[in-house]
């Protein structure tokens, strides 16, 4: 019993465990990640949808618009006309119904028009000039992307006004002209030279070569496909896009009492919808069954609501002229599943023959580009200008995209192609382009299993309200009302924000080691304290939206 006598017992605590390095226990560390959402993966314009939807949720509408127009300068138009692959891919689809992304896009696009938001002028002015042939979705998109990087752009268009299919194809009840006008004007206002009413052909190339460093061909596809069963010269047989154009120009073509629309795509539905407003009776004959018709389901639904009769999974075998009306001999078909992609091969089902009678038949079975003048100047294949992955044609300095170069005939696809072609052109022009940050190649798309659905109670999906069918049938006013503010907010809240941190703090709250702290300087809002992180993965598991990953550590 010797040693120093301690008046005070030795074992009261003297400090905190926070000096200890418990992070040494781990084998892997959680990291915050911005991961691609499935909607992004399928978006024709590569839009990082969760980002702008979150901006809506945060009521930062202008920021949402700015995010949108990074990739798509015409959200009011695309917000009405997109074929919406995003909603098909949405992780919420299987859970309780997809987020109405398209309606949200429209909401922001309409707001931008209403508020008069403008694009900022390019920060640099470059010397190079680019000629854009065609002022439709692809041309507008490309021109916009080039111009905002400072390139000098001239758009040539055969029509009196810009907009292409948006202006002359899509009917008013889907896309009011004033929206197209507003959005095209905003693009032009960036300082783009516009030459309308001039249809450029291959012969003009020499002239263009003189004045422009590069040429972008995007004049679309306007040559209607025909069906051999129908006579070319029969005035009772119309083509869809010509019909739609006439309606758009307020000089609709004459229709009989009974109209039969042939086709199963968006154009066919637009034709049917327009015809319904002009004729007594409209029937549709589509080769595909309803489930696989190329037209979006809601567009089909619209026309059926309005009184069109759909004959799906059937084709015309022969046409009989009943002096006045046409009698179509039809048969039910199945589509051969055993064909290469892009090929459609119907198989007739014996004994299912039937007939349809029509005063007017409108064929809406697709269009081809008019390339007669271009063949020999640029390589043409399968009826389209041939381009490589960078939208380069066979001739140096000439690029092409949109319907003229693609079989994917969606307006949104054209906008995306236009954007990507612009990037390619800028590279060609030797400019260092600032391409928006994409995702690393190894970034794994967020799947539903990565979503912690606990944090997302099921909700009714919700969509744009529609004008009552009794009313809308009698005019060309827009069928779908845009989302109200409340609807838009509710809808934005439904977004899982797959792969995008929204600073919910869950990672920090659920860390038993308090190893995740909020840090406004960190690129993804949080800092993981390596001294303490034991690598348990609670943050990852409790991240509602798959915005975290694991980094293996070797020691």
């Amino acid at each position, binding site marked *: 019993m010797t040693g120093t006598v301690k008046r005070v017992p030795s074992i009261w605590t*003297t400090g*905190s465990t926070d*000096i200890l390095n418990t992070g040494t226990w781990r084998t892997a560390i959680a990291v915050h990640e911005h991961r691609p959402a499935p909607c992004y993966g399928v978006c024709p314009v590569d839009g990082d949808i969760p980002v702008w939807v979150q901006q809506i949720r945060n009521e930062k509408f202008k920021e949402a618009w700015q995010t949108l127009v990074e990739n798509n300068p015409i959200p009011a138009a695309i917000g009405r006309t997109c074929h919406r692959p995003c909603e098909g891919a949405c992780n919420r689809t299987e859970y309780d119904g997809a987020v109405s992304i398209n309606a949200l896009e429209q909401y922001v696009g309409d707001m931008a028009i209403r508020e008069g938001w403008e694009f900022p002028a390019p920060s640099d002015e470059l010397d190079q000039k680019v000629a854009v042939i065609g002022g439709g979705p692809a041309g507008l998109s490309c021109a916009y992307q080039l111009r905002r990087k400072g390139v000098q752009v001239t758009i040539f268009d055969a029509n009196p006004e810009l907009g292409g299919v948006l202006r002359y194809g899509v009917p008013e009840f889907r896309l009011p002209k004033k929206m197209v006008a507003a959005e095209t004007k905003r693009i032009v206002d960036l300082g783009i030279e516009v030459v309308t009413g001039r249809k450029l052909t291959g012969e003009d190339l020499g002239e263009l070569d003189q004045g422009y460093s590069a040429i972008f061909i995007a004049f679309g596809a306007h040559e209607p496909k025909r069906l051999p069963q129908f006579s070319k010269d029969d005035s009772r047989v119309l083509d869809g896009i010509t019909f739609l154009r006439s309606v758009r120009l307020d000089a609709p073509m004459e229709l009989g009492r009974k109209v039969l629309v042939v086709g199963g795509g968006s154009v066919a539905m637009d034709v049917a919808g327009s015809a319904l407003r002009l004729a007594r009776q409209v029937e549709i004959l589509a080769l595909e069954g309803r489930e696989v018709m190329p037209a979006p389901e809601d567009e089909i639904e619209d026309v059926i609501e309005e009184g069109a009769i759909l004959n799906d999974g059937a084709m015309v075998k022969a046409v009989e002229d009943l002096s006045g009306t046409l009698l179509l001999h039809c048969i039910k078909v199945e589509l051969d599943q055993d064909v290469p992609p892009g090929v459609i091969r119907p198989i007739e089902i014996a004994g299912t023959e039937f007939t349809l009678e029509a005063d007017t038949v409108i064929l809406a079975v697709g269009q081809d580009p008019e390339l007669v003048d271009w063949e020999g100047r640029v390589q043409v294949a399968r009826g389209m200008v041939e381009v490589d992955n960078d939208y380069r044609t066979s001739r140096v300095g000439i690029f092409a995209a949109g319907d003229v170069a693609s079989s994917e005939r969606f307006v949104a696809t054209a906008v995306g192609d236009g954007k990507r072609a612009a990037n390619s052109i800028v590279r060609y022009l030797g400019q260092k382009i600032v391409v928006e940050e994409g995702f690393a190649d190894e970034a794994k798309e967020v799947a539903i299993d990565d979503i*912690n659905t606990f944090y997302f109670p099921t909700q009714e999906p919700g969509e744009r309200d529609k004008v009552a069918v009794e009313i809308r049938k009698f005019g060309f006013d827009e069928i779908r009302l845009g989302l109200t503010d409340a609807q838009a907010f509710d809808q934005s809240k439904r977004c899982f924000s797959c792969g995008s941190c929204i600073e919910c703090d869950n990672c920090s709250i659920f860390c038993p080691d308090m190893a995740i702290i909020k840090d406004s300087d960190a690129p993804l809002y949080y800092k993981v304290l390596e001294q303490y992180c034991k690598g348990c993965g*609670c943050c990852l*598991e409790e991240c*509602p939206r798959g915005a975290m990953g694991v980094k293996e550590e070797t020691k």
Partner: protein
Amino acid sequence: MGYEINEEKVFSSGHAACPGCSEALAIRFVLNTLGRDAIAVVPPSCIAIISGPQPLSSMGIPVYQTTLEASAASAAGIKRALVSKGNDHTNVVAIAGDGGTYDIGFQALSAAAERNEDIIYICLDNEGYMNTGSQKSSATPSMAFTTSTPAGKLSPKKNVPEIMVAHNIPYMATATIGYPDDLARKVKRAMEIKGGLRFINILTPCLTGWGVPDSAGPKTSRLAVQSGIYPLYEVENGEFYTLNYGPNGLSVADYVTTQKRYRHLSLENIELIQAEVDHDWARLQKKF
């Protein structure tokens, strides 16, 4: 989006809990809600280890480590001493495991409740003696495997929350880590209600003892709630019941199949547990 939790940084990093430990999470929410004007008592348990190796403490407030059976009495002793010194503001909290609460510490707890000692008693319920390597406690549920019930426990879990309610204490609540805002709110509520024993039973899945991944603590605790096994509710003065989160359609099977401690169960076993859970829930529901 996000939880509304007002945390004061009281619980420190660098503690010795297993990666992902549910108890550490619970302690975080408890201490960080209580704030610095508090004194804690902990009995031998994982909590005692988590609170730190001498001479360091993770808990930020004075902690006294008592014996396994004495938490409530020890906490009461502190509170009374503070009162004798004229201190009526410092919160005294006992933080014990289920072994130290449901089993060996129950006598002291029941007596402290009877005396209505002005303390907060937190039971971190991981349904067994997990610090000693997973043995059965009276909080272990029916048929669960522990190293002392290798064939599965033959009796149901003791219903200590309801026993505490029967003491007519001012506040009893069940909580769990998967609902941290609810948990923090209940601690806050317990603080507001002064002048008697306030008891909060916090389900804290033991990752090792239950056989779930390190990241699954919060999720497992939510499954317990959603399957009706562990409803979250609170009772004031022994009679006013409020349901916070009850079953939402998940079944016992959804819960047990994620845990290794139940992997020996047959379908019939699961049905028996389901019947027990349904019965208990029906009985509890009448009280709301």
